[in-house]
């Protein structure tokens, strides 16, 4: 195990964490500000990836398809908020879970009817398909570097938006005390629609950026949504900063766990036991991290509400 390999694995962890952050950012805002458990968040991610794939084929350019898919999904998200989700805010969490679960089923079946059961082709654009030599001996795929760059840029942008603008102030007020924010004259209805649209757009960005790396297929949202929920819970519900730190923590834990736990165990224990326990331990490392964090900080790392 060389230092260069360790460095490369850290980059992998950073990249995986940042891609989780794109999903978790929207989820934590919706969860924290509107108090809405939106299971259909993963469906918006799927729709974003499908739109990016279709638009790439239609326009012939990933660079055009990406903003179009993000904008279209953002608009779709706002429509969804106005037509369906708005009516769920005052309901209890069980009704929200049931209703948004229904949305998952509807989204999956609709996608299947429109695009068919087979996964869709969406490949890395030619210009980014190579790899970059970061250090002598460390080649890193260019597209993964782009994901890191986009993730960091979005994190910076969200930080500016939430910490230094008027809209951001409303968002923070809404997250910490919704009723008081309404009483102080914040247009909560409009704010919620906007926040939901931004969340949906971030989902689409994640879907479009990950489409070239993952299978674009029906149900792709559900597998990644679970990780996004873990991130939100670790980070503290409603906190963008929490989502960022939580996402990096989960990304690093998962990556370094998978890379080094099996190897480390082989050094300590008998080979046959290490072979069996290594992969199992690596795959639960995320959840172990969550348990440890919640044991010390039951509200998550950066609690917002009260």
């Amino acid at each position: 195990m060389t230092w260069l390999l360790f460095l490369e694995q850290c980059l992998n962890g950073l990249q995986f964490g940042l891609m989780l952050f794109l999903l978790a950012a929207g989820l934590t805002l919706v969860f924290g500000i509107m108090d809405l458990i939106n299971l259909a968040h993963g469906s918006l991610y799927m729709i974003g990836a499908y739109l990016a794939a279709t638009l790439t084929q239609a326009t012939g350019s990933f660079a055009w398809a990406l903003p179009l898919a993000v904008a279209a999904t953002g608009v779709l998200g706002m429509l969804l908020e106005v037509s369906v989700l708005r009516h769920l805010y005052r309901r209890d969490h069980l009704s929200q879970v049931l209703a948004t679960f229904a949305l998952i089923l509807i989204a999956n079946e609709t996608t299947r009817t429109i695009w068919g059961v087979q996964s869709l082709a969406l490949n890395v654009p030619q210009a980014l398909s190579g790899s970059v030599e970061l250090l002598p001996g460390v080649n890193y795929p260019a597209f993964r570097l782009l994901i890191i760059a986009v993730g960091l840029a979005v994190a910076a942008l969200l930080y500016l938006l939430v910490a230094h603008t008027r809209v951001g102030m409303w968002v923070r007020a809404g997250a910490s005390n919704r009723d008081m924010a309404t009483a102080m004259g914040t247009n909560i209805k409009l704010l919620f629609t906007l926040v939901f649209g931004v969340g949906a757009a971030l989902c689409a960005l994640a879907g479009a950026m990950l489409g070239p790396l993952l299978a674009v297929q029906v149900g792709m949202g559900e597998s990644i949504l679970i990780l996004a929920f873990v991130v939100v819970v670790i980070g503290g519900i409603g906190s963008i900063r929490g989502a960022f730190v939580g996402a990096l923590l989960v990304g690093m834990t998962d990556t370094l766990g998978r890379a080094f736990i099996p190897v480390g165990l082989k050094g300590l224990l008998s080979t046959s036991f290490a072979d069996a326990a290594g992969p199992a331990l690596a795959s639960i490392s995320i959840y172990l991290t969550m348990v440890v964090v919640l044991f010390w900080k039951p509200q998550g790392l950066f609690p917002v509400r009260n």
Partner: protein
Amino acid sequence: MKKCILLCLALLGALAMPAQAADKIKIGFISTLSGPGGVLGAAIRDGFNLALEHTGGKVGGLPAEVLVEDDQQKPDVARQLADRMIKRDKVDLMTGIVFQNLLQAVEQPVLQSQTFYISPNTGPSDLAGEKCNPYFFAVSWVSDSYSEATGKNVNDKGYKNVFVIAPNYPGGVDVVNGFKRYYKGAYAGEILTKLGQLDYAVELSQLRAAKPDAVFFFLPGGMGVNFLKQYHQAGLNKEVPLFGTGWSFDQDTLAAVGEPTLGALNAAHWNLDLDNPQNRKFVADFEKKYGRLPNEYASQGYDALMLMDAAVRDVKGKIEDKAAMRKALETANFKSVRGAFRFNRNHFPVQNYYLRQVVKDDRGRFVNKTVGTIFTDHPDAYVSACKM
């Protein structure tokens, strides 16, 4: 008392009736037609229906009624459908199931009721070995046959330091064991990943650092698509040759994934370009009817019906005569799209396995090209345990 008399009369009636030709034949077709695995069941169904069209809607000369049901990839649903088909619909033959865990759910009621089951896909090793059954036939393969062939090919090509990657579940371990049975060289690394893993960056970094001379991977479904895309994207396809089973490179996957599959080597018992009259007809008519090229699954569905057709014709429609029917199925007097076909005594095929490579054809489509024969008349590894 009255009940008893009725029962006795019925029994006597049944005794008096000689095994006579039925006037039609009922086939139960349970398959996964929805959800992520639905694409496989749909391929089998399309191949099966094309064969039925080729036989004029008849099986062995008898009008056929096919009951198609979707098991939704849920074992309990499959079990319910099978019970209903056996008890209420009284089907004569059954087929269709894609996945091994679903077959496990229905094999007991189907085989106990002495209904012939023709597997168009999954071939569990226990049914090929100690649990082999007179009523169970597979027109496909045993679940580790493809990886045996891949292992043999990697070994014959002289690779000495192979990296292996598969998901950590019993099916994955079985397939890897099939590979190991024929590959005798060393291992640069062996990784068992979490089932359903999305990102393979970690494994690809380790793979590159281990400097293997070849890679064998088995990652079914979406996992395989993720891995292929990322392998290609990391530029590894230019450095280390990638070997897989035919399942990872079926025609539907090639069409959907495109570029990242190019050049990959894989093993299967059938291919589009196998040169025999029935295969040429199958491929041409399939494309005409469905507007896409067929894959292995479709070829297996096609062969399943052709086998039934031949057997029913051989017993002259007397499908109630189980012993004669079994014999006719064992004889397998039909022309398979894979070419020569015969059953071993465990009712699994003895067949060739081919080496295929993904290329672009003259119309710009990604297809498998047959580049060699790995095994000729290859039996599975479990037949010696079968007492049949």
